[in-house]
């Protein structure tokens, strides 16, 4: 059971896709039901991962079988999770049912295809998080791209084609570079299989590291997105349907930051260290820049999209602090951002469905008309601002204190001013949408949230408080794996300086990954 659970979880959505094929085109209700049930089932299947996870640095629930053997190329289906991917996997399975439930009334056309896209997307995302084989990771990485492209391009808003193409080209540009670097890395390692742990133990000369790191880092930077390659994001977010935006923000962006923690830093530590000032600078610019731009947005959804860029800037800063607090904070902030910004996009979706506009100036005084909505909106807003007691604070605080302890002290100081700016843009938006006179006649008839919508938001609101008040289980489970990443970085930095050192870093068993034979 232990070694099949990851595969079972990852491919359950495919079963949903198969069932959907046999459902008549017009039975929208059944299609929605099947998709929702599948996503919910996936979530429940993923829960034993949390309970069964042993708090240590090893990969768990590992499964490794030969897959494609083409001459010297050996690709294994090698999956497993550690403290770093565990919570991202859970976040994915948790967000998906919510995202699907949110489309109940929002999407009326091509429902079947829409649901198939969403479920395929889930397969891609889960697969990418659990892959311990570089090639397998790359395949899942590309699998995610296509359904998202369709979701934006078919069910999107007015500029959907432009947005979809831009999303595709940006991501593709990064992916191609990553593929080239990946293949080069493979040959540097002398062929064989694509096992990640094998690549970890490699000791590459600095010049090779540099360009390979740049290729990987560029691909991930686009996904994060880091300044200045972020401009696809506001557009993609604004044009995507609600579920698309939620998944994009909550999970897809994490692929970028996850890529740094899992691949770019441990694979190329000395190059990574060399580029720390650049990446930290871009992260901090992202925080300030995106906050300032968010402040002047006229469209609520675009504002939230820019706030995403700012939040992910914090994540990157934490990761590059490369100490326990910083990386743990960054990882937590990934989850927090998934919950809070996911919730914000849902909220924007609610009012968009009601009014078919997202312009801030079209609203005002909604608090009076929609009190339940107002309460939830406010909680989520303050979570996004990072108020202590909510999830946003714990991550942000750990990131900042971690960065302050490391060499990135001054970056931390500048980024801290982001806490002021986030309050400015979020509260200003909240005030203009929710406070004031209810003067627009069209807003006077808006109904408050219905039971389905409340059901969507309740788990998110609960998580906001749980993760803010009792983050211990989250931090504890990821701590050993984070330690390992930090150690990997530091040890290989020594190795990189002296290229003649043995290829095997102490503590990492190359030939037999420890957890395989469980």
């Amino acid at each position, binding site marked *: 059971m232990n070694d099949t659970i990851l595969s079972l979880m990852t491919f359950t959505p495919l079963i949903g896709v198969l069932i959907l094929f046999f459902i008549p085109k017009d039975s929208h209700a059944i299609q929605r039901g099947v998709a929702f049930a599948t996503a919910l089932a996936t979530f429940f299947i993923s829960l034993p991962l949390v309970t069964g996870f042993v708090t240590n640095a090893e990969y768990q629930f590992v499964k490794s079988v030969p897959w494609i053997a083409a001459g010297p190329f050996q690709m294994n289906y090698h999956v497993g999770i550690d403290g770093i991917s565990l919570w991202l996997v859970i976040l994915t399975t948790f967000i998906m049912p919510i995202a699907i439930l949110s489309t109940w009334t929002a999407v009326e056309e091509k429902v079947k295809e829409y649901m198939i896209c969403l479920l395929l997307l889930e397969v891609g995302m889960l697969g990418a998080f659990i892959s311990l084989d570089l090639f397998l990771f790359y395949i899942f990485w590309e699998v995610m791209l296509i359904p998202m492209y369709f979701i934006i391009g078919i069910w999107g808003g007015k500029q959907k084609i432009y947005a979809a193409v831009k999303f595709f*080209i940006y991501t593709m540009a990064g992916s191609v570079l990553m593929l080239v670097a990946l293949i080069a890395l493979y040959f540097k390692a002398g062929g064989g299989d694509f096992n990640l742990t094998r690549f970890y133990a490699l000791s590459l000369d600095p010049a090779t590291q540099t360009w390979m790191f740049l290729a990987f880092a560029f691909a991930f930077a686009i996904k994060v997105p880091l300044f200045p390659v972020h401009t696809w994001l506001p557009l993609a977010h604004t044009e995507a349907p609600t579920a698309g935006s939620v998944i994009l923000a909550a999970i897809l962006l994490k692929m970028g930051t996850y890529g740094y923690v899992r691949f770019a830093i441990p694979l190329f530590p000395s190059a990574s260290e060399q580029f720390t000032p650049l990446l930290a600078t871009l992260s901090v610019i992202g925080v300030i820049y995106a906050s300032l731009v*968010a402040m002047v947005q006229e469209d609520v959804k675009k504002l939230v999209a820019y706030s995403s860029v700012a939040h992910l800037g914090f994540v990157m800063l934490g990761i590059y602090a490369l100490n326990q607090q910083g990386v743990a904070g960054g990882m937590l902030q990934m989850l927090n951002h998934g919950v809070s910004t996911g919730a914000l996009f849902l909220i924007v979706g609610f009012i968009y469905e009601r009014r078919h506009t997202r312009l801030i100036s079209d609203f005002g005084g909604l*608090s009076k008309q929609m009190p339940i909505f107002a309460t939830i909106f406010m909680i989520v807003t303050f979570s996004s601002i990072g108020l202590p007691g909510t999830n946003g604070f714990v991550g942000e605080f750990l990131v900042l204190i971690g960065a302050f*302890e490391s060499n990135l002290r001054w970056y931390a100081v500048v980024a801290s001013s982001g806490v002021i700016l986030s*309050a400015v843009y979020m509260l200003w938006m909240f*005030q203009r949408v929710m*406070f*004031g*006179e209810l003067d627009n006649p069209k807003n006077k008839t808006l109904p408050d949230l219905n039971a389905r919508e409340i059901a969507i938001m309740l788990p998110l609101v609960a998580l906001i408080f749980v993760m803010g008040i009792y983050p211990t289980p989250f931090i504890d489970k990821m701590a050993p794996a984070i330690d390992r990443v930090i150690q990997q970085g530091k040890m290989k930095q020594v190795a990189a300086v002296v290229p003649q050192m043995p290829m095997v870093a102490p503590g990492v068993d190359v030939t037999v990954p420890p957890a395989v034979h469980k």
Partner: protein
Amino acid sequence: MLEYVWLIPLFPLLGAVFNGLLGKKIKNEAVIGGIATLMIFCSFLVSCGILMQLIGLPAEERVFEKVVFPWIHSGNFKADMAFLVDPLSAIMIMVVTGVGSLIHLYSIGYMHGEEGFYRYFSYLNLFAMSMLLLVLGGNMLVMFIGWEGVGLCSYLLIGYYFHKKSAGDAAKKAFVMNRVGDFGFLIGLFTLYWWLGSNHNVWTINFTEIKAASSLLPYGGVVTIATLCFFVGATGKSAQIPLYTWLPDAMEGPTPVSALIHAATMVTAGVYMIGRMSFVFVKAPDTMMVIAIVGAATAIFAATIGTAQNDIKRVLAYSTVSQLGFMFLAMGVGAFTAGVFHLMTHAFFKACLFLGSGSVIHAMHHALHHAHSHDDPQDMRNMGGLRKAMPITFITFLVSTIAIAGIPGFSGFFSKDEILWQAFANPFHGGLNIFLWGTGAIAACFTAFYMFRLVFMTFFGECRITAKSKDHLHESPLVITIPLMVLGFLAVFGGYVGMPKLLGMLPNYFEHWLEPVFATAQGYAQTYVHAGAHHSHALEWGLMGLSVVIAVIGIAIAYILYIASPSIPARFTATFPALHRAVYNKWYIDELYDFLFINPCKALGSFLWKGFDVLVIDGIVDGVAKVVMGLSGMLKNLQSGYVHNYALSMALGVVVIIAFYIFR
């Protein structure tokens, strides 16, 4: 009892959750208000029990820490949900729960009939919880939860009438300005944590642990930076220059909120924080000087603005800013006990003043409402002669005014006089002392003036509303007047626990009580201050007498201008219109901040968006896409499928190759 300290913040939290979730369904005001008041009163009872227990212990054992559950543990960083009870936090929880209970009770009457009654009480309980976390926090991060939590509740309560744009603006302004301060608080925390950790391997943010390790901290240097950052946090929360402008606007909230949050408790958090970390602050003499100067400057600056306001609550708001300045002056001259003492007495008389003004506004509102008048019920120019209609409000208001003005025998006199004396006699600031004292004394004169101006305009003279409205003026109900009477009593007698030694009638219990808290700080101070010049008792008596004279002068001027010959103020404004306009418009500080910070930020944001994001980055991206498309468009022509095209290109190729060999 000490073991149950966690009950103190828990009760109001339960009340907040209960009213927040069910209040709307319950609708019964007595139940909603009753539960909220009961919850904070339960906290008050527990606080009393804890105070009693502390009193029973020997002085050196009056420190108790309670870890409720682990909160954030990551690497060497550790922050638990932990509470710290010592003489200082004991005083604070007594003030917060005591004054808080009275204000909750008062609110039942004041908020009667409001649409968002349940919402109000939920927020008010939530505020009480946050404030209690702030004062009980055993480490900086729990304090910071409270610190930001009170900011949130302040935001919610200032924006209580959210349909008014001014209320929404004021709420946002308060939160953002507080956030500027929080930024400072965070950086201060980081600096202290990082420095102690990386230099001495003491990784802690726990107050008692920092205190134990405080001997490792240097004098000045990094401590100056950290404490200045913390002080920025204090200026935000406690409305000091330059971050004070949110507080007067905060008067958009319901009046009991102004009394509780913006006078008695939240705004004193900065003072409390400095007291809590006195052993760090005292190691940074430069910071102490900055605090003293900012405190004195705020005291006089806000007092000048207070003289020209006509809105009864705004006068009190500026008065609060000014009084907070006095407290910071005390902290800055190392008179921590005096600062905390003034914090306490101020909580009594200022809460009483605010609640009294609320009672007046309440009465005015009803009277004007009955007469279908649209005059502003908060404008003192519409009041006058209210002492006859509202005797209880008048008496309690008057004694509190006397207390704040600094007339001997009333609580405010003891605390304020102590601060002024310490400003004069402290061993820290040398030649600066005389200026600190002088500024404080002049501010005290202004205080007496604007407060009695308020009393004279409101309660004396002829009633300036229409006769029809006047008939509807009447005293507020008991639920409002009982808190007034209790606070009025405390405003008079609350100061006797800390009577100056000079008067010698009672021992100074207050100082003895806080001695162990500030002993470490005083010890550090001894190492660098010049053994302060010994001032004679005669000088102390003299200065005390002088401060009384100053207060009386202020009152006398108010009497002359507003009772004896009321035409003078009008003539004064006519003679110096520019000066009056500047003071009335609060020295145009809001406009200055708009000009300096807000507008440039917005402009920069717009530029970055439309100029950089759209034009530059997207321009490059789209440009690259266009070049690629253009190139592929050209290349496409090469593969046209026509044989003659291929033949032509082959011929061209041959020409190029031949040319290459000929000309190389």
